[in-house]
Every structure is written in structure tokens, then in C-alpha cells.
């Protein structure tokens, strides 16, 4: 029976359990001498309680079977085979199991089938049907026991609602723990792999090295070098700085205009259109940088007598700045509109013009919030991947010249982990060390930004 079938059967049985719980509670509502009694919980809670007690253990058995059943059967079959018939090599073992599986399912095999294989396949088929029966029996028993327990304990006083609600709350708590587990998973997995990397390369060489050129060791001496991340870091910061230089003035002025000057109609049209920029996938920006912005900037440079490469820190930075404009403008817009009207009115009443009010009153008041928004934008610029992969030129050199090609932390992570590489080599593991660095950098920026923004909110609430 396939998974879908099992799920359908379980749904039907759950409905049955619900009805049984419902019926039982109705009987409990009538006392021995035939008087109606006051129920603690409404009947459908008794139904749900019965479903929970019957279905949760049965479902647990099913999941365990799905996760480990196959493995157990394969080990049993291989263990029962004659000593010489099982190959040592795990690859050949897998081939053998594949063949046995095909035989056992009745799909059959072409070519020679040895007697040993035939016997093992019969064994496997037997175990499979036995396993299915055992699981079905276990599920049935678990469900029946749960249902029986419900049946026996149901009285008019049973606090079925509280029990069901406690189960619901437990489920909710488990769901909100997923976010915690994600963070823990990120930290642990990256830390683990990064520590493996630091067994090859000392952290000092990694964090302070100025040469990035990780090649496979061809000298045969096991010496690994060229893992200095400073060129990548400088490239990352250069691109992010250019992006902020583009996005900050444009985004902030857009926000000011939208919040203070624009008519209601302009605002209604222009705001969503600019926010479209925020919804565009970054790969599209990357393509835009590669096909339009790069050649344009290169041509512009040629006209001005500058040598600008088509794929350079400048190209990537400018396009990334475009990507960040809506981010800064919508965050700053929210913050600027939160500044109390009384402060503006005070300035206007003293005779200040609108621009003076904005520059001398509104912006200083909104500054902490804007700083928070900018920090979030920087963190986004540092972590951005696809634009730099396509448009920064991938040249890991230590340079401050924005017209040159650079490489960044994110680009290097992608380069080191795509392609046919061994996950155990430092060439792959370095990606996790870089990722950890990136995570810590963005974490600090995000937390500082969140604290700043929160402080600011509290100030005016």
C-alpha cells in the first residue's frame, strides 16, 4: 500500500474515532438513573480527544516504519545471506540490494539469477510482508488501545476541552521551536564544518591572509596555502560601499519626497511601483548588470578616458544599489511618517519652510531609525550573491579600485561548493568557514539594527 493510501485509511479511521468519542460522551451525559448530567466539555471535544489518543501513537508507528523499516529489512536479508555472497564494497552492496528488491517486488530481472539471490529475494519478500503485517497490527493495536482508554475514562466530568487545548498549544510551541532549531542548525553545521577546515588551515592564515588562491595541492607535500580571506572581505566591503553610495541618497530622498511632499495620488501609484523593484529576483538584477549596466558603464568610462571593466566592483555595486533603493525607501518612509506631527507643526509654526523642517527637525528625530534601516541594508548588500556572481568579475585581489574586477565572500562560497568537489577537502570546507564569517557579520549588523530600531519605536510610542 502506498503512502497516500495509508494516509487516506488513517483519515477514515480518525473520523471513526471522532464519532466514537462523540457517541461515548453523549452516553456519559446521561446518568445511571436516566437524568441528564452537566458535561464539563462539549461533545466534539471528546471526539477530538479520542482522535488524538488513537491517531498520534498509530501515526508515530507509521513514521518510524517509513524511516527505518527499509534499512532493518535490508540488514536482516544481508545478514542471513551466506558469508561469501555479500560483497564488501558498499556500491556493490547497493547494486545487490537493488536486484533483490526488483526480484522481491515481482518486477523480475533479466539475465542470470543465482540460487543465493533467489533465496535472499524470497527472504526479503517474506520479511517485507511480515513487516507490513506487524506494522499494521501495531498501528491497529495502538489506535484501539488509545480509543479504549478514551472510552473507559470518559465521564461527564472529563476535562476533554482542556486536554485538547493543551495538545494544540504543545503543537504551536513545537512549531515556533522550528525557527530556533534553524538558527541552532545554521550555527552548529557551519561551526562543525568550519572547525574541520581549521584543521587544515590555521585561523590566522585564513582571517589575516592576503592571498586568495586555493588550489589543489599538486606538490604532493600536503601543504595548503592561498586561503587568505582579506581579498574577499575587501571586495565585499567595496561592492557594499558602492551600493550604499547609490542607494542611500536615492532611497532617502525618495522616502522624504513620498512622506512629506507627494500628493496622495502620486504616493498611491509610485510607492507600489518602486516596491516592485524589491520583488524582482536577484538573478534578474545580475543579468541586467551583465547585459546592460556593465557595457554602459564601460562605454561611459571610455568616453571619460577611464578604463572601466564591464564586470567590475562598480557594475555590481551600482546594480546592487538599485536593488536596495526600495528597501531603504520603504523602511525610511515608515520611520519618517512615525515622527509625531506635533514636531513638524512646531517647526512650521516658527516659520520654518518644509525643507528646513525636514532637514532640521524630522530627520534628526528619525535618525536612529534610519541608521537601523541603513544597517539592515548593508547586511543585505554583504550577503547578496547572484548580482556579484554575475557582474563583479570574480577576481580575488586586494584592491580599492572600483573599476577593477573583484570577488566577494558570497561569490567564493558559490564557486567552492559548485562543481564536482570532495566535501572533505579544504577547498570545499572553506565555504563553511566563509559562510560562518558572513553569518556572524550579518548577525551583528542585524542585531544592532534591530536594537536601534526598537529603541526608536519605544521613544515615540
Amino acid at each position, binding site marked *: 500500500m502506498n503512502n497516500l493510501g495509508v494516509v487516506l485509511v488513517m483519515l477514515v479511521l480518525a473520523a471513526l474515532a471522532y464519532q466514537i468519542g462523540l457517541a461515548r460522551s453523549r452516553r456519559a451525559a446521561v446518568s445511571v438513573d436516566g437524568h441528564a448530567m452537566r458535561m464539563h466539555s462539549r461533545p466534539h471535544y471528546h471526539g477530538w480527544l479520542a482522535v488524538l489518543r488513537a491517531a498520534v501513537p498509530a501515526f508515530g508507528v507509521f513514521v518510524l516504519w517509513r524511516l527505518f523499516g527499509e534499512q532493518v529489512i535490508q540488514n536482516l536479508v544481508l545478514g542471513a545471506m551466506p558469508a561469501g555472497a555479500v560483497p564488501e564494497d558498499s556500491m556493490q552492496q547497493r547494486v545487490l540490494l537493488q536486484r533483490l528488491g526488483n526480484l522481491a517486488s515481482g518486477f523480475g530481472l533479466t539475465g542470470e539469477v543465482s540460487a543465493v539471490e533467489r533465496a535472499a529475494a524470497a527472504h526479503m519478500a517474506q520479511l517485507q510482508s511480515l513487516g507490513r503485517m506487524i506494522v499494521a497490527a501495531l498501528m491497529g493495536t495502538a489506535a484501539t488501545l488509545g480509543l479504549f482508554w478514551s472510552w473507559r475514562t470518559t465521564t461527564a466530568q472529563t476535562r476533554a476541552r482542556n486536554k485538547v487545548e493543551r495538545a494544540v*498549544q504543545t503543537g504551536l510551541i513545537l512549531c*515556533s521551536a522550528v*525557527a530556533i532549531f534553524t538558527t541552532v542548525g545554521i550555527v552548529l553545521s*557551519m561551526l562543525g564544518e568550519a572547525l574541520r577546515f581549521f584543521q587544515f588551515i590555521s585561523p590566522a592564515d585564513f582571517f589575516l591572509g592576503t592571498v586568495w588562491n586555493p588550489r589543489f595541492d599538486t606538490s604532493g607535500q600536503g601543504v595548503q596555502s592561498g586561503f587568505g580571506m582579506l581579498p574577499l572581505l575587501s571586495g565585499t566591503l567595496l561592492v557594499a560601499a558602492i551600493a550604499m553610495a547609490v542607494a542611500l541618497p*536615492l532611497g532617502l530622498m*525618495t522616502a522624504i519626497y513620498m512622506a512629506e511632499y507627494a500628493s496622495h495620488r502620486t504616493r498611491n501609484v509610485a510607492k507600489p511601483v518602486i516596491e516592485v523593484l524589491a520583488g524582482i529576483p536577484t538573478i*534578474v538584477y545580475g543579468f541586467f548588470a551583465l547585459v546592460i549596466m556593465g557595457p554602459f558603464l564601460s562605454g561611459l568610462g571610455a568616453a571619460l578616458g577611464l578604463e572601466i571593466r564591464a564586470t567590475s566592483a562598480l557594475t555590481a555595486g551600482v546594480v546592487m544599489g538599485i536593488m536596495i533603493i526600495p528597501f531603504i525607501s520603504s523602511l525610511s518612509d515608515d520611520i519618517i511618517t512615525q515622527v509625531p506631527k506635533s514636531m513638524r507643526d512646531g517647526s512650521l509654526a516658527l516659520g520654518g*519652510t518644509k525643507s528646513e523642517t525636514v532637514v532640521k527637525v524630522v530627520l534628526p528625530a528619525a535618525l536612529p531609525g534610519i541608521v537601523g534601516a541603513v544597517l539592515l541594508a548593508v547586511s543585505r548588500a554583504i550577503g547578496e550573491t547572484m548580482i556579484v556572481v554575475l557582474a563583479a568579475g570574480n577576481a580575488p585581489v586586494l584592491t580599492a579600485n572600483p573599476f577593477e574586477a573583484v570577488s566577494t565572500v558570497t561569490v567564493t562560497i558559490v564557486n567552492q561548493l559548485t562543481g564536482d568537489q570532495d566535501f572533505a577537502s579544504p577547498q570545499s570546507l572553506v565555504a563553511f568557514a566563509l559562510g560562518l564569517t558572513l553569518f556572524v557579520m550579518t548577525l551583528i549588523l*542585524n542585531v544592532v539594527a534591530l536594537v536601534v530600531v526598537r529603541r526608536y519605536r519605544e521613544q515615540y510610542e
Partner: protein
Amino acid sequence: MNTSTPATGYAAIRSRVESSLNRRKAQETRFRLIGMTAVAIALGLVALLFATIVSKGLPAFWEATFELDVNFDKELVQIGPKPVREPTETPAAFQKRMLAWQTDLGFVDFNELLVQALAKHLPDAAKHPRDALRLITTGERFALRDMVMNDPGVVGQTRRLKLLADANVDVWLKGNIDRSLPDAQQQLSARTRAWADELKSKGVIQNRFSTALSMNPDSRSSLASAGLAGAFMGSLMMMIIVILLAVPIGVASAIYLEEFAPKNRWTDLIEVNINNLAAVPSIVFGLLGAAVFILWFKLPLSAPLVGGLVLTLMTLPTVIIATRSTLKAIPPSIREAALGVGASKVQSITDHVLPLALPGILTATIIGVAQALGETAPLLLIGMSAFVTTIPSTPLEQSTALPVAIYLWQGNELRNFFEARTSAAIMVLLALMLTLNSLAIWLRKRFETRW
């Protein structure tokens, strides 16, 4: 003491005030202009982006297409009858016979059929079959084979077929390559180019709307028929996984944090943690997926299941934050009214808060899905940049995704063909994103309640 009359003092002050006022008004106008310029630049960038993508991508939906009478000559297509499974046969034995028959079919020279079909319009085609075959994209001979495989009855008949021209022919006819380049730099021989022009003027080749882009999987050998179907299917599977996992988990944790959680250090930590996760670079989630799902759990590389799980973790914070703000916007009076008439806390939420929050939750879902749909970087790290030429049918098969297909296509060597095709793929992706986003905006507007 003061000799000046009040009148002149007044005038002096007045002129000073006026000049300062003029200066300040000019400043005001300047400031306003700067603001307007910023908005105009931002809007202009949106327009520029869309204009370039559309102008580059739109022509790629039409491709140079032959309309040829192909004769499935009995002499050339010599194969036995298609095997039928006999009741006594095991599935494995039948599969073997079927494969043998398909191998036989593979030996048939379908190129010859194409050359013969071309010879009806180009008398010299049979003399220079190599040049003639360069006209038609290589995938079409497999299309002919599949026609015979699906319906052996076609052998001996003549069919009028629409066949895609080779990518280089398409580039040549659309003028995307400099026609004055010397022969050595041209992809096609002089004869093939002349034939292409001749057939175009005869009307045998026409620029037709092509379904290859949307119906075919990717291909490396037959560029003209490379399509997005595989990537689309992969993205679809991942989005289904995201919706099935991220929405229930996200909504549940939002409900817990907003409605049940006590205000203490622990929930504070969860809150900071979720806000931080929302701002963690997406590539970090890719690293998490590579380490946990691929290295530890040994799940297959390039599988939509893994991609879906990674994207779920990535969109979860977005869904949680958006749902929480929806729940926050529902006034406490609703909950208090429910509690006041004797409902329990859970009842007040399931029966009153959630129905009111439903449109907001839907919007949160759509925003999350749109974000997941456009994400590329984490998918590269779990091997989804592998070149896959099949359409996946289960979430454990190798697959790619729409944005990854764009990434792969932009790197193709045949630039003047694939620049347009990449733009077309971007148009498909953007159309999906814009539809989702406008749906979200519409839902918000339609069901927005001001309490």
C-alpha cells in the same frame, strides 16, 4: 541717538527678510526638485529594467520554423512491430524487449528523412547533407523518432511537420549576428546561410510562435528546442513543499508568539531570533542545506525535495512576521468579547481571530512563495545547477528551478541566441512574480479592515 527714521529701518529689515525669504524659498524648491528627481530616477530604473528585458526577450518567443513534408520512408525506417507485453512475461523481461526495440529504432537514420524532406525545396541538399542538416536543430530527429515510437503506424506515410530551425539559423535570419563577418567567424557555412535565406524567401522557414520554450526540458545539443518545462516543474514542486510546510508551521508559531507566549526572556530570544533569520543572507540557508540535508541526511543532490526544505526554512521567518502583524492588527476587543461570553483562549482564536486574520495570512503566504520562487543562491549550493534534460516527476529526481535555469542560460556560449532566450525566461519568472505580488496587493486592498 538713532538718526534713521523708523521708515528706513523698516525697509532695511523688510529687504533683509525678503532676500532671506527668497533664498529659503529657492532652497525649498531645490530640495523639492531633488526629491522629485530621486523618485523619477527610481521609477525610471523600474521602467528601464522592464523595457530592456521585454525588448530583448519578446522576440525569443518566436523562432524560425520549417514547415516540411516528411516522408517516413519504409525503406529507411526498417523496424519490427512494437513489442506488446505477454501475460506470462515478467515486467523486467518486457522492459528488456522494449529497450531492444527502442535501440533498433535508434539506429534508424532519421537525418536522411530530414535531408529528403529538405531536398524537395533545395535540389542540392542531398549532395551536401552536412550543410543541409545544420539548418534544422538536432532535437528534431529525436522528435521524429518519438513520433515513430508512439505510433509505429506513421511509417510509410508523409506528414506535414513544423520543425524548429537550428539556433544559429535563427540568429542568422533574425539578424542577431553581423552578416558581413568573414566566413571563418560565422557559425554556419556559406552554403547553409544561403539556403536559409532562400528557404526564408520561399516561405518554407517562417518566424512562428514556438512552444519549445515552455513545453520542452532543457537541452545542450539542441539549443533551439531548449525549454523551461523541467525548471518550471522543479519550481512548482518546491513551491508546493514550501506551501505545505512553511504556511502551517509559520502560522502556528505566529499564533503561539502573538497569542499565547508569556512575555519573558525566552520569547524575547525567539523574537530576536526570527527577526534575525529574516535578514540572514539566503546563501547561508544554502550552506545549511548542504551540510544538514546533503552531508548528514544523505538526501540526493539536485532534488526538489531538498530545495523545497531549504526554501521553507528561508521563507518561514517572512511568513511568521507577516502573520504576526496581521494578528496584531486585530483589536483585543474581539478576543475579549469571545472570552467574555465564556469561550476558552483556544476557542477565541480558532473561532474569531483566525477567520478575521485569514486574508492577512493568505497575503503572507503569497509574499513568502514569491520570495522563495525567485531565490537562486541557496539552490546552487545543493546542486540544483546541475544540467538536467528531463522533466522531474517526483520530488526526489534531479531537477532545476526557474531562476537557476536563468543562471545557466546566461552563461551559454551561444550568446546572441541565449541572451534573448534568457530574457524570455526572465519574462516568464517576472510574470509569475508580478502576478503573485499583485494578487497579494489585491487581497490586502479587498479585505483590508480598519478597526
